[in-house]
């Protein structure tokens, strides 16, 4: 088999390192780029470099931002009485898409998982306690994933925060909207029964 030109092979190798991209997809992307004008390749390269050069961590909430503090932390219309704790910056984007939450955020930088060497000291837990002390929100909403690590992190944080006199809540577990009851798996349904709520009069 003839070997591919060096630069082609090296970009294929780089793309193949990305999540969900295998060698075949990587090759398709590279041959697509090869067929594009130089300007296209330049703007892609610039965008990638800008990602590393211009994006930094917000010194207040630890989300990703171009300017510090980030847009959400600077926004005076954001309700300072609500603080939502998430594992990663991408969770903020998911929650923001709902448009329902109007408080501020705090990014932990992961979930507690001693199996992967992540304890409370590896996360921004100390910073969270300090913020709750300074900003004295009335409620901390814990929005960690509904898996074992998310559950342990939520319970651990609530044990840390409750003595500070703040209300700690967690996102509800339950049924997807628009779905059908008989399609829900038993475990989700059992959680939804546990977390049922009284209808208002």
């Amino acid at each position: 088999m003839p070997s591919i030109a060096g630069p082609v092979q090296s970009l294929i190798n780089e793309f193949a390192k990305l999540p969900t991209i295998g060698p075949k997809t990587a090759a398709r992307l590279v041959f697509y780029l090869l067929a594009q004008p130089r300007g296209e390749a330049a703007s892609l390269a610039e965008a990638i470099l800008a990602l590393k050069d211009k994006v930094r961590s917000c010194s207040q909430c630890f989300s990703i931002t171009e300017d510090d503090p980030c847009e959400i932390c600077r926004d005076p219309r954001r309700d300072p009485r609500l603080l939502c704790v998430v594992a990663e910056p991408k969770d903020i984007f998911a929650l923001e898409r709902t448009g329902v939450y109007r408080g501020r955020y705090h990014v932990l930088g992961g979930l507690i998982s001693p199996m992967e060497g992540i304890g409370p000291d590896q996360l921004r837990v100390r910073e969270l306690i300090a913020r709750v002390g300074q900003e004295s929100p009335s409620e901390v909403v814990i929005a960690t994933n509904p898996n074992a690590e998310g559950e342990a992190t939520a319970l651990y944080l609530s044990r840390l925060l409750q003595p500070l006199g703040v209300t700690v809540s967690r996102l509800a577990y339950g049924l997807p909207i628009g779905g059908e009851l008989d399609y829900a798996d038993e475990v989700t349904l059992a959680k939804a029964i546990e977390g049922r709520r009284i209808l208002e009069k």
Partner: protein
Amino acid sequence: MIVRSVTLGSFRNYAALDFQPSPGLNLIVGRNAQGKSNLLEAIAMLGTGKSFRTSRESELVQHGQSLAFVNGVAELSHGSVTLSCRIVSAGGVTRKTYAVNGAPVRFASFLGSIKVVTFVPADLLLVTGPPSLRRAMLNATLAQERATYYADLARYAKHLAQKSAYLRTATSPDPRLLATYNALLAELAARLLLARARYVTQLTRAAAAIHRRWIPGGAPLSAVYHPSPALRDYAAGEAELRLQIGAALEEALPRELARRQCLVGPHRDDVELLLGELPLAQFGSQGQQRTAVLALKSAEYAVLRERTGEAPVLLLDDVLSELDAQRQEAFLGSVEGYEQAFVTATALPALEIGSAHYVVEGARLSRIR
């Protein structure tokens, strides 16, 4: 329930197999390493979603392939179900995906679509072997019966693994994090303990009745559940049990910190088998122990059938040859109301059994009767 068809692709030594089993007892005969157990393993996977032989599931994919599948159609007491399990093994990662009636589902929803009771040579050590065998016996039935039991068990195992890792690696463990794990573990342990206690009560009653029929007037067989922590009063209910388990975990914490290990909880449960007052493991003869195992397996079948209202598929992998003709007959006679069974043997058993006989030779199955 009756498995009407089993289709394998690149599964173990089967490149492809299309098998239409018969109702009643399917006897599968063949020399070692021809594919008898592989076929039973595949049928069991349709019920449990997991291999009963290995935890390294990359072994399930035929050498040189990256995708294996087991498909099956089973007839239940009401209607039929199509099941599919795909195993993809590539780059050192093995993943399984499941579908029921063509729709993709999660493991917890796949598990128990058809019920199976497996009996393998390792089960013959149920009385004398390590406690993990007896816990596996409890889990096999309870997980097939209720998806929530399996979910609790899986979550318990996850939190336990995290707590163990923390005890092992933390230089100065945060007592609040340990208390967090203990609270999560106590909640799950209380539910597991209650489910296991109720099951053992039912199992011991059924096993004792079978044993009594075999050995009238003999010392009665019983199974006693020994939960960890050693609680006795289950009647108090889940909330009370959670408090008691929580207290036991707190009490054990200094020892756990010293030994850097999780020492209390359902991962340490055991079931003790008694003949009269005497523990069978220490005082029973080999014959008595074997009879007790058969009574337990038969009881396991009876209880799963009673609890689910379906006759589970019975899978006997290479165990008949371990039993004398009298025990073979007694066991098969005691499994009441089975609709379908799969039995493997290296030679035709002494007993005249089976509504259909097959021979397996180099991953090819042919019907001989």
